[in-house]
């Protein structure tokens, strides 16, 4: 890791007056809120992808509540940092972050997956502010993110592009087409975060179509590779701060995560890729997450 770099604060980052520990605590509080809120949404909707939502929550929280520069009242401002949820099924994490960051009223979260809701099972930019591109089929977010980064490179623009991908998603060939080109172009404004929870829908990634050596693959495509604990808020922030320093290579942060993180009975269980907690399980999940606040 290089020296963490400070950025002009916008939104919640303005609260960063006490340095790294305070920033990490703030992200942790928002992540805990996101977890409780998204589980409630899934319970109310009767469907969802809790496993992947919970593995990605800390990463998404660190981005929306500290790193990204945006104005939720001007979601298409040309200078905004871009975040793309390439693993588009993890809308519980995305929508709670967008609502928490002020892109739309928090009450809208209660419409999740309801008939006619703007809060689709997969995000739609044409009717939900803050969404950059529609995702859902895997393998789409990185090429689009690379295109935005190329536009920024042509314009010598200041904005940064972050793409969150699942690990199983890296079995899609289009991701590597995009990775190859990003390396070729030296896209220093692009950061990919791999949500490395090691489980895909049906089984372990390594038992299905193995990804390892994952860091070596990215490095050989011309990327800087960093590995972090994807649930350690201070480590995530340090990795993002460092990723924002000037560079002439794209960077990948391999975030080692736990599918279902934060809810004991969901952790590392492929069965919770889809799934809805029953009332008892939901109460247990909330109790565990609330206990974490007071820990």
């Amino acid at each position, binding site marked *: 890791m290089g020296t963490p770099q400070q950025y002009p604060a916008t939104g919640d980052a303005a609260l960063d007056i006490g340095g790294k520990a305070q920033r990490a605590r703030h992200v942790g509080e928002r992540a805990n809120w996101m977890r409780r809120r998204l589980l409630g949404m899934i319970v109310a909707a009767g469907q969802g992808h809790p496993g992947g939502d919970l593995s990605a929550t800390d990463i998404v929280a660190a981005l929306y509540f500290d790193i990204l520069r945006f104005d939720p009242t001007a979601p298409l401002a040309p200078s905004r940092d871009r975040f793309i949820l390439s693993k588009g099924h993890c809308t519980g994490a995305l929508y709670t972050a967008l609502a928490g960051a002020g892109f739309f009223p928090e009450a809208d979260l209660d419409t999740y997956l309801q008939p006619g809701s703007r809060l689709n099972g997969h995000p739609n930019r044409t009717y939900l502010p803050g969404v950059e591109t529609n995702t859902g089929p895997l393998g789409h977010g990185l090429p689009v993110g690379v*295109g935005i980064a190329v536009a920024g490179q042509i314009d010598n623009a200041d904005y940064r592009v972050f793409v969150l991908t699942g690990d199983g998603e890296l079995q899609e060939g289009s991701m590597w087409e995009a990775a*190859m080109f990003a390396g070729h172009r030296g896209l220093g404004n692009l950061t990919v975060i791999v949500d490395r929870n090691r489980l895909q829908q049906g089984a372990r990634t390594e038992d299905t179509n193995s990804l390892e050596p994952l860091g070596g693959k990215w490095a050989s495509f011309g990327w800087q590779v960093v590995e972090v604990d994807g649930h350690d808020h201070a480590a995530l922030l340090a990795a993002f701060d460092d990723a924002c320093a000037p560079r002439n290579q794209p960077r990948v942060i391999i975030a080692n995560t736990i599918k279902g993180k934060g809810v004991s009975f969901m952790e590392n269980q492929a069965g919770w890729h889809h799934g809805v907690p029953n009332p008892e399980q939901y109460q247990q999940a909330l109790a565990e997450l609330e206990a974490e606040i007071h820990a």
Partner: protein
Amino acid sequence: MSASAPSSGLFDCRDAYVRAVEELAIADDRIVAVVNDSVGSSKLGKFRDRFPHRLVNVGIAEQNMVGIGAGLANGGKIPFVSGASCFLTARAMEQIKVDCAYSNSNVKLCGISSGVAYGELGATHHSIEDVAWLRAIDNLTVIVPSDPWETAAAIKAAAEMDGPVFIRISRMPVPQIARAEGASFAIGKAEVLRVGNDLAIIANGTLLHQAVAAAQDLAAEGISARVVNMATVSPLDAEAIAACAATGAIVTAEEGLASGGLGGAVAELCARHHPVPMRMLGFPGFLPTGSAAWLMDRFGLNANGIAAAARELVGR
């Protein structure tokens, strides 16, 4: 009139396409070109020399090319994403659907050397399904220009419009269609090239000049054919089709599949609102090897074939 007839008055629409893109790029620095190792086949060499930083060559990777196009649009650019139509459409179909159409991205997809332009290379390189596939996608404008003038006009109209557009650009030699002084192009608006009341011929792309020639032949026999240029296949000009149906019979002709494309679109609309006898001229499916001109003649996609279908329809 044979598609193979050599003539000094024939043009390659790619030339009009690159000229139009270059003119747009001079006036507007948001214009960029995205290609899949197809600088040469898209004739973008001069564009690259003039605007080296605005030519994004992703290599042989069509899914990535279309996704990058959507990303460039997100970054404020107006990308002209150009590649052989067979690869651009089939290989990147989901990117066209999701990243461009469903996301409402301001991407201009240019399917080069469409139809059977690559005749001898076989069915892998024929792009006769593209219009049928793409017109099934919501929020995607599909334009099939007929000649250099219309190609340039379509490119400029696409750049002015905010939203995804597919433009099919032939390399098959075509004449410039004779038009009235002051003729103009508008997306979604059909062009009446000839009035007539025994039947209507609806065509576009490389078949349009054949339709005009067929109507001339038919007129000599006393059959009065209305000729309509349906350059925009999606959204379809329903009013123009109603006027065609009012003649009592319709022949469609296109350099593509006989079903699912222009003919299919017209037939769907007529079946619902103005059922009339129709003949839909196009290719039946995977085609044998042969030059583009040979394939067009072999499957009756020429003035004679159109005229024969017209006679059959009007019972003469």
